[in-house]
């Protein structure tokens, strides 16, 4: 009798909890999705619907006009290609160099590697703003310790090329690379030592062990690092707008979209452009900039969410 009542109370509590949980999750999901839905709804609206009081979500007149404007102003396809090339290039190079460094720090200890790893932590902790100006000046007159002026007579200007990205990602010092080294190190530390020793006894050198045994095991952390690195490079405005001022990549094009737009619409007199319409096209621009990322995410998300749980972030 008492047991039955207790049971029913328990189950009542459980039902209440699932209900509350469901509400909470749906509510928060809505908060996350809201800006995206908002942008989609704005992007497919016609200019006529902007001031219509009856249009909230679903437009009365559909139009592709906003997309056309954005494709035209941002030079979308070229920009998309450039951004894709830049992001994938830095991603591949960063993942490779960070995996090497992470394995070196995790398993191949040498004198002073502890101190060097403290250096990795330092690169994570120092705000990139602090070193931005010297790096900028350095890249503007790139000398490679005085070697290049000896060969060509003058220093190279690497700004507005992809070289800053190639060089920093090749040497594992690109955007947030310290974090990736940390992830890889934690992961490799979690693989049992016996695996490595068995490989050595069977005649594998250190390079072979790394390439044939460690890397295939490290797929979860590779996926994590690749996705982070790709996405953050894609969205990055900090380094990209500093290194590349006139190249057409997504973040610089997005940053200058409002300006270009008002120039285009009003032949340079930007005071008369309707701010609502500008904002509408800008929203479409943002939507189109993140659209490729969302498409990629839809394909890899299952893998990503699973793999992050087996990654070494947790240590």
């Amino acid at each position, binding site marked *: 009798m008492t047991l039955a009542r207790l049971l029913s109370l328990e189950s009542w509590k459980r039902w209440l909890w*699932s209900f*509350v*949980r469901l*509400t*909470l999750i749906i509510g*928060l999901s809505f908060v*996350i*999705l*809201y*800006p995206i839905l*908002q942008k989609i709804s704005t992007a497919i609206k016609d200019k006529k619907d902007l001031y219509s009081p009856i249009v*909230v979500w679903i437009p009365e007149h559909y139009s592709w006009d906003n997309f056309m404007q954005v494709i035209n102003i941002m030079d979308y396809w070229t920009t998309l290609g450039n951004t894709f090339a830049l992001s994938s290039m830095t991603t591949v190079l960063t993942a490779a160099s*960070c995996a*090497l460094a992470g394995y*070196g*720090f995790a398993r*191949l200890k*040498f004198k002073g*590697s502890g101190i*060097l790893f403290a*250096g*990795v932590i*330092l690169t*994570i*902790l*120092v*705000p990139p*703003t*602090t*070193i*931005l100006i*010297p790096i*900028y*000046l350095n890249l503007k007159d790139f000398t490679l310790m005085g070697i290049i002026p000896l060969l060509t007579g003058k220093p190279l200007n690497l700004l507005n090329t992809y070289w800053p990205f190639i*060089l*920093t990602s*090749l*040497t*594992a*010092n690109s955007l947030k690379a310290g974090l990736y080294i940390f992830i890889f190190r934690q992961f490799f530390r979690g693989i049992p030592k016996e695996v490595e020793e068995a490989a050595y006894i069977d005649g594998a050198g*250190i*390079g072979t062990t*790394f390439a044939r045994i460690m890397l295939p095991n490290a797929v979860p952390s590779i996926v994590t690092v690749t996705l*982070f690195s790709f996405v953050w490079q894609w*969205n*990055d*405005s900090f380094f990209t707008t500093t290194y590349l001022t006139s190249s057409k990549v997504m973040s610089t094009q*997005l*940053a200058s979209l409002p300006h270009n737009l008002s120039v285009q619409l009003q032949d340079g007199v930007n005071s008369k452009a309707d701010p*609502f319409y500008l*904002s509408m096209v800008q929203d479409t621009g*943002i939507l189109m*900039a*993140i659209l490729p990322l969302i498409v990629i*995410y839809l394909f890899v*998300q*299952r893998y990503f*969410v699973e793999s*992050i749980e087996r990654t070494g*972030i947790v240590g």
Partner: protein
Amino acid sequence: MMRTWMKLGLKPRTYAQQKALWGFIYVLPWLLGFVFFFFIPLLSSLRYSLSSISANAQGMTIEFIGFANYLEALTVNTSFNRVLTESIVNMVVNVPIIVIFSLFLAVLLNQKFFGRAVARSIFFLPVILASGIIMTLESTSLIQAVNDQNAGSGALNALGSFELEYMMLEAGVSETVVNYLTGAVDRIYQIVSQSGVQILIFLAGIQTISPQLYEAAKMEGATGYEAFWKITFPMVSPLILVNVIYTIIDSFSRNALTDLIRETGFTQFNFGLSSAMAWIYFLAIAVILAISTYFISKRVFYYD
């Protein structure tokens, strides 16, 4: 392998020596980058911050002027002090909210319920979307602002606030904390969009806790809340430290101070002042990191 070493006239190395050698080779690319793209720039930035820099036909002249730039940043510059305090206060207010919120969501997303996979992929979406330029542009979007006013986002927030308050009170959290959290609710989108990575880290941590612990606790008659406070919370406490540090670092990329430093450097071409500002900022962050690490690590529980 051995024979090649012999042929080259080198004495055969032990496994440990080989490992050390290869370790150095593996780390070498990073080391080069560290020296050229981090350490030397860091030192020059320190030097610039102590000098007055002027560009002329011969290039740049750098003249040592001591702490004048620091004094200028702190006393003469009109906006630096204000922006610095604002950024730091914002950060200090947001960090606890983000960490608590993401731990809560991680616990929630770890439970079994219908549609969990979908919910997870939605909650990790901000990892992808909320960074860099998009955030900046979004905050200036006029349509967004007007629609927020009209489309009853107030009702949405009130709902979120009510549920959160209820949840938290039921989970045994004290009322001050609840008030603090509900105060954060008008910034719910900001909070949610900044906690993607933190949720991931906590979720990964929760999944490494062995299920036996929960089973044993259940046998002894522990309720879900007790299990959370006595098992989950201590087991993920090292990750709280990780997440606090990550949240602080993550705030670098999206605050007004970064913009001010950039503007001083690249629009006004006052490299000395800009470097001095950046160093003050870095030192402030370092102090905050040191204090929070000290206090949290005293309470962290390590299961070994």
